[in-house]
């Protein structure tokens, strides 16, 4: 379930949430509608090219800027299975973990990947295989607490179990 294989869509550093999902579409929170405008201001052809299961690969500081959770929602709704980056901006990182969008921090894999490559990502083991290039890179491991959130499917299931254990609220 935490293994994905798909075609790479490659971006540079500092991809901000305003280009991932422009603010002019934030008058809705409907995932399908957000997905139709994903990456519109950095790569207008993205939504017509992307196939279900494809993988976004980017350099440093992916998802910088606004806290809008519409960004990971739009990426997921566009059909992307997983995002690999050299590093993530911190709110995007939180949002991805909290909402269950699989992300992997792997500077080597990000640097090596080219648009159109096929990559296989094992999020649990933290391995990014570039099938096209015949290479494999080890990703940074998540701290145990975040592993737990990822395994539980996000923050809200975790909080529900915490509140349940405390006798409800």
């Amino acid at each position: 379930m935490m293994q994905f294989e798909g075609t790479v869509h490659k971006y540079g550093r500092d991809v901000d949430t305003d280009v991932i999902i422009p603010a002019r579409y934030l008058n809705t929170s409907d995932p399908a509608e957000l997905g139709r405008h994903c990456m519109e201001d950095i790569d207008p052809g993205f939504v017509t090219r992307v196939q279900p299961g494809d993988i976004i690969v980017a350099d440093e500081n992916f998802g910088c800027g606004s806290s809008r959770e519409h960004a990971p929602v739009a990426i997921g709704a566009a059909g992307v299975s997983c995002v690999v980056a050299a590093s993530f901006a911190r709110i995007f990182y939180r949002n991805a973990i909290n909402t269950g969008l699989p992300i992997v921090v792997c500077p080597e894999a990000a640097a090596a990947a080219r648009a159109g490559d096929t990559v296989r990502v094992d999020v649990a083991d933290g391995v990014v295989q570039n099938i096209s290039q015949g290479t494999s890179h080890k990703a940074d491991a998540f701290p145990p607490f975040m592993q737990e959130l990822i395994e539980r499917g996000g923050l809200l299931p975790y909080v529900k179990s915490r509140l349940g254990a405390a006798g409800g609220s």
Partner: protein
Amino acid sequence: MGHSIIEKILARAGERESVRPGDIVEARVDLALANDITAPIAIREFEEAGFEKVFDAGKVALVPDHFTPNKDIKAAQQSKLLREFAVRHQLEKYVEVGRMGIEHVILPEFGWVAPGDVVIGADSHTCTYGALAAFSTGVGSTDFAAAMAWGRVWLQVPESVRFVYSGTPGRYVGGKDLILHTIGLIGVDGALYKAMEFSGEAIETMDMAGRFTMCNMAVEAGGKCGVVGYDQTTAGYLAARPAGSHAAGGGAVVESDADAEYAQVVEIDAGAVPPTVSKPHLPSNTAPASDLADVTIDQVVIGSCTNGRLEDLHQAIAVLRGKKVHPRVRLVVLPGSQQVCLDAIADGTMQAFIEAGAAFSTPTCGSCLGGHMGVLAEGERAVATTNRNFVGRMGHTKSEVYLANPYVAAASAIAGHVATPEMVGAGE
């Protein structure tokens, strides 16, 4: 080894003896905030998860400020979700249009944030309240939904970086220039995941408005939060908050130990920082305003959560009073709150703006994020006292935003190009 102010606040909120960077705490939340863009997702998640009540109806703030007064039908639907949720859960801190302002201006102004607090907000500029010696940070809608139910937030304790600003800033240099200069120095991920602690002589002599501006933009360097230590300026600001408000109680004041451990100490000579502008399309792309006089502009925006306080409007009017906005330029003012509007009326500031040829708006985030109230067309350029100049931020993907302080923004509005106050005869 001692602890930084942020480590102490998170230890207390996480009910730990002490914490170190990298530790994960489940911190008690003193205030959880969301707006008309981020709250709708959170409300849906809260309800779909089956939560029935909020942890504390006095500690959840909903501020419809981004696309309000409702700019279109979809925006109106979103605002309606907030209003109905606030009524259903009897939220004490729902703020309606006509009484509201930009979230990061009104939360401190209303006395809702005190030193030592842990504040999370589903808006990246929630880091603003660090100016009150609090820990505050931006999160997503899911974090906000979880905090509404749980009263807690998971946080990894950040390393702190200490920025020491020595000297006295120049005549037309303020908190905006110091933070833009700093972001230019370290980059848009230069403080990634870290707490930015602002200190030194130039901070000690800076008013609260300048400190709010600096902490507001910590996120533009990738920072988790910005923070300024408590002092007489903080105390004076808190004493002027409404009687009986949370902040009027003073809060749990903590400060960094003299031997606190910092990931890095960055020393900056504030006296050498010029009026600074961030060119498109990153806040780190800085240059002295005086070098950009060949950049002609179509619009100027003064205000926002970054520079929408009365002190900011006063800086702009010091340059603009008695002069006219360039015939080719639109000047839009986005004040931070109704109180800012009232004060600006009482002291003649609003009249001076209008006489100069400005459009003076009701408080809203508006054009800062290309929502409404001054969206840019293809090929247009703006000077703005806002916080981001990403591609398409204020409108068309082929428009441009230059970030600046209110003095420079006002001078640019007069000149029709990026200008320093001296270029339009100010200070003579």
